[in-house]
């Protein structure tokens, strides 16, 4: 039995400790935001946040997560009540098929935690690990800039 803290809630999961987090999120916890894209840490569709840092959940065995805080896109808001980052992505219509987008949102979340006013270079470097097959990159970048600007507004 492994204890996982996801979006502030404690879960006890009966899974092999080697199981990557992605499969536990989707199979055991019904948190289907994170997606399987490649299973190799090469596409970013599985990106979640652990202790404030973006990681590939397809490569994170749950054994390493005891006592650490996992945040998924479901922890940032709901469809009825989206959080500020999700609202920025919606406002910029950053999703087309939606497959990459949960990973993109979590990558943005980790970036803004570390760097609330990121430069364009910083944003692009941060997102290098996340692929989008539909090509909505420009909108995703706009959403991140928007969220950063609105974050600065909110903190005034």
């Amino acid at each position, binding site marked *: 039995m492994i204890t996982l803290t996801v979006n502030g809630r404690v879960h006890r999961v009966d899974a092999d*400790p080697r199981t990557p987090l992605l499969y536990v999120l989707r199979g055991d916890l019904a948190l289907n935001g994170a997606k399987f894209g490649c299973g190799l*840490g*090469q596409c970013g569709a599985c990106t979640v946040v652990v202790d404030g840092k973006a990681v590939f959940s*397809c*490569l*994170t065995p*749950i054994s*390493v997560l005891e006592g650490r805080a996992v945040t998924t896109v479901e922890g940032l808001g709901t469809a009825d009540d989206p959080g500020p980052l999700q609202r920025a992505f919606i406002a910029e219509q950053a999703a087309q098929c939606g497959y990459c987008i949960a990973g993109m949102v979590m990558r943005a979340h980790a*970036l803004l935690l570390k760097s609330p006013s990121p430069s364009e270079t910083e944003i692009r470097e941060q997102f290098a690990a996340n692929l989008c097959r539909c090509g909505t990159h420009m909108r995703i970048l706009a959403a991140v800039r928007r969220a950063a600007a609105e974050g600065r507004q909110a903190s005034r």
Partner: protein
Amino acid sequence: MGRRLALILIGIVVLLAIAGVAAAWHPAIQPVAPPPPSSFDKKLVARGEFLARVGDCLTCHTAEGGRAFAGGLPLATPFGTIYGSNITPDPETGIGAWSEAAFRRAMRDGIDRGGRDLYPVFPYEHFAKLADEDVAALYAYMMTREPVRRATPPNQLPFPYDVRPLLAGWKLLFLDRRPVAHDASRSDEWNRGAYLTEALAHCGACHTPRNRLGAEEAASRHFAGGEAEGWWAPPLDASSPAPMPWSERTMVDYLRSWEPLHGGAAGPMAEVVDNLAHGVPEADIQAIATYVAPFMPPDSPDRAERTQAIAARTEPPGAPQPAGAVVYAGACAVCHESGGAVPYTVRSLAQHTTMVAPDPRNLLHVVLDGTHPPEGASGPIMPSFRDMLTEQQVADLVVYLRARFSDAPPWTDAPAIVHRLYSGRSGS
């Protein structure tokens, strides 16, 4: 009597001091107006570009994210930090006011235009062996680069290392200006490789151990292993501990991009490979391999068997290492146990020379920071695991990898090195 002796001794000391100062004093060479790029013959510039690629000038003379050749890269040495200088043709902050004679003196004698001795982290003991026409070609290439105005930061060297005239003494001891000896009993290709390697590529600057005064150890210790920028540079000589054999062919493939027995270059060596990939003909890389490969130990069936046996293991012999085993199974195995199916992975981590290194630095750099090819190039893409794993989990993993994928003794200093490298940089 005693007073006379004392006066004579003082006189000798004064004379020695004057001689020392005389040896260490070099005149400034008059500045020139920057020669217009069009004044250089295009073929000479092209030759200079080829030489600069083999010599890897770009890597030390460019800051991370900085403009080409504009300097600013900090190089950590046991004596302090030295910054790569701006060698663009900017007249004030670069070498734009340097005549060819000044450039030649820097390359051969390690003296800048103003007469200051240069630190041998700039490997002039190698460049001293360049042919005159090659120095001229390099000058033509450098003077036709884009000038960038960027002052080089001052070095951070404690006393007495900041006393440049002492370098004159260093040069007396260690600067061998003799050209690379031509060996008539060897092929033209070998001789060409010897020249390119020793006069230009300066492989020994990283791959040869250095003595207490920072000079490469000579003769029998040539290519016996060294380090560069916090990475271990493995031996290229008979003491090579590589689990997989090296040959001219595998060395050419490795230097070109990637090789299925050994993998690809990471860290500072990846920059060398990137330089060689631009405008260096295969024949020249072949020549370098023809010269360097014979230093390596001959292939032995014993070694091949040993490596195969280690690769066939599914766990470390002896104590089980459960913490590291679980991390490997969940985080690493999906790519590294694919039997080489995932592009740019070798069949078993047991093949990597990193596993038999004297310390875990190289392995930790790769685990903590990952690898990625230069923009636009194809190559291994490995994620960084610094953010996914805690410091303890990284240490457990590294201990496991060493135990499972090698028969070398456990790293005794692993926790300290993990601690230093883990807290070195933060990820995202």
